[in-house]
């Protein structure tokens, strides 16, 4: 499979090379889209689909004539999930490659490490990472496409409240995603009148979380359990949860919203709920849902092109690229200040992840409602509404 994608990549490279040679004869300079993603390393399950999405759609847009009559050129570096490398590559994109806009940053750490550079250089930057700190407080040049972890926490707690749960047990990974998710959950729990009565953590590379789950099980009055984390950790938590035969309703975060999680967790995932983008359940979306055609088109295109199933994370990259393109088109140039302003002005853009309504004090543009609550039934995602 890896071999096949390599061959394909070589093919794509050759194709883009020839087309760009042909085109460059008459067309203007290409528009440079810079990107740094965690394509390898512990966060590769984020960066890998993100890069695939960017490559695929840049190619597609170029085939359709590009943007403003100019071709797109994707310049990408792999930060291996390391924030310092992310910072260096961001610097390279800004100063050496002199890109027009950056779409990237798979993890919050990588994004935040690049923020001082993009802010000082005045470079429009669309991050694909989750934590709310990226856009709160608002930074002039920084936007992001995924819903914030705060929204995920709100959505989960909303669903819990709806089902009448008041006391919950929390278990979270100590990696960036889990730690930030834990913080946000604890922060918003009060608003929803929910009490976190057990608070456990695990390190992202742990191989057994039975001890922590035992503590939660033995805490009095727990109505439901929430796990905030990503990577293989949550799958192990799910397995341990089932093995311990804990009968309480179980929630995961959007960090595991991909089919590979179902594969890893197997039958143990049965009945758990999580907030996710509609990408996982395009068929179950009601006909009138404006996102339905977008989501279906992306899913079909991705799966046909890469021969592997879509994940929520690739969707973030899709939205990031499309927002960039829309802003550049609206600005009519790649003037950075103009593009930034147009990004801020985006209203009602229907993406894979949600419907974006940006503003001067909202550089994310999504609401918690863009998360759909899914439940695992019969080994597949089912929309709960």
């Amino acid at each position: 499979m890896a071999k096949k994608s390599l061959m394909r990549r070589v093919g794509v490279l050759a194709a883009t090379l020839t087309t760009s040679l042909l085109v460059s004869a008459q067309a203007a300079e290409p528009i440079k889209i810079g990107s740094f993603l965690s394509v390898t390393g512990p966060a590769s399950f984020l960066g890998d689909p993100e890069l695939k999405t960017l490559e695929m759609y840049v190619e597609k847009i170029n085939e359709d004539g590009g943007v403003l009559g100019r071709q797109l050129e994707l310049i990408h570096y792999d930060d291996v999930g390391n924030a310092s490398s992310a910072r260096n590559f961001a610097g390279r994109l800004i100063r050496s490659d002199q890109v027009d806009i950056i779409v990237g940053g798979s993890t919050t750490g990588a994004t935040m490490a690049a923020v001082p550079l993009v802010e000082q250089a005045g470079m429009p930057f669309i991050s694909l990472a989750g934590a709310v700190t990226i856009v709160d407080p608002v930074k002039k040049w920084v936007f992001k496409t995924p819903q914030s972890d705060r929204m995920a926490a709100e959505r989960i707690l909303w669903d819990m409240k709806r089902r009448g749960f008041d006391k919950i047990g929390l278990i979270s990974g100590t990696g960036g995603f889990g730690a930030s998710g834990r913080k946000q959950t604890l922060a918003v729990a009060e608003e929803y009148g929910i009490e976190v009565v057990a608070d456990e953590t695990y390190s992202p590379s742990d191989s057994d979380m039975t001890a922590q789950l035992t503590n939660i099980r033995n805490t009095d009055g727990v109505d439901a359990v929430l796990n905030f984390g990503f990577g293989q950790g949550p799958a192990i938590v799910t397995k341990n949860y089932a093995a311990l035969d804990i009968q309480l309703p179980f929630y995961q975060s959007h960090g595991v919203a991909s089919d590979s999680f179902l594969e890893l967790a197997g039958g143990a995932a049965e009945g758990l709920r999580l907030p996710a983008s509609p990408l996982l359940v395009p068929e179950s979306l009601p006909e009138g849902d404006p996102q339905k055609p977008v989501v279906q088109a992306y899913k079909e295109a991705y799966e046909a092109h890469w021969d592997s199933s879509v994940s929520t994370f690739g969707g973030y990259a899709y939205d990031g690229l499309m927002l960039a393109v829309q802003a550049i088109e609206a600005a009519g140039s790649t003037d950075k200040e103009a593009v930034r302003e147009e990004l801020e002005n985006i209203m009602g853009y229907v993406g894979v992840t949600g419907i974006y309504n940006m503003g001067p004090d909202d550089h994310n543009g999504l609401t918690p409602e863009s998360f759909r609550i899914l439940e695992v039934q019969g080994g597949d995602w089912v929309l709960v509404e």
Partner: protein
Amino acid sequence: MFERFLNWRMNYVVVLAVIVFAIPLVMENPFYYDMATQIAIIAATVVGLNLLVGYAGQISLGHAGFYGIGAYFSAIATTTYGWPPLLAMIVAAAVVGLVAYIVGRPILKLKGHYLSMATLAVGFIIAIIINNEGQMTGGPDGMPVAPFSLFGWELSSFGLYSFFGMAVPGHVAWYLVMAVILLIAVILAQNIIDSPLGRALRSIHGSEIAARTVGVDTARYKSLVFVISAIYASVMGSIFAHFSGFITPAIASFDYSIVLITMVVLGGMASPMGVILGAVALKLLPQFLAGFQEYETAVFGFILMATMIFMPKGFYPTAVNFVRGKLRKSGGEA
């Protein structure tokens, strides 16, 4: 004259100075300056680590921990509590020196793999604390750091400065400041090496038994050099924090400790120029390998392995010996 220069202990410092100050004449790209500054920071760190590893022959697989404490202490003190950066840096160095002294005393009694294990454990504990104390450190997602400033004068990569009437952009200014710091770091280290203290340190590497019989208090000297190398790391960590503007716990991680020690071994233990070149190589390699895409990791591992197999003394000493051999040979023939 030339003969005297060749035999002078500081000759390479002159060469180094010429190189680092010639760079602004030929280099324009701000990104290259960014890399060069980082290389200088890390090179100064490994020059300090080399005192411990290369000269005193003691392994540390946890040095990034000290680098991390320096960086985070400076970051928190300046950004959260508004301390002046220089004060924060000095206090951080003192704190790190104290920590290194306290843990170094018992640890340095260990030898070989047990010493590597213990230093690794210390580094890990530091990294775990930084990672978990999110209230202060921002946790795994890291924290922003205020720019470096001294008496109201702020040093920023994006600023514009004038130096004797010449316009110097921020990234060049940072580079020049760091180049001077690197040279100072190297000169201080070389002075230590060439002093009685350095002799005692090297004797610990050469024969600890001999050292003890002539009255070297090996325990004291080991912890002294451990503290010195930790302070080097701490100061450079502080500088990096201000330069980078954002730090994450990755700079205190085990992986980073391995990177540091690899720079020392790869370039050439007990050779300041060697470890500097080791830092240059290891810092630039990922930038060159970025073109290899998914093969990057494998190629990197291969280069690392092959260099150490064929040049176990490090590439700089190997190259120097090679050139010397050639010279001697051609001299003999003439």
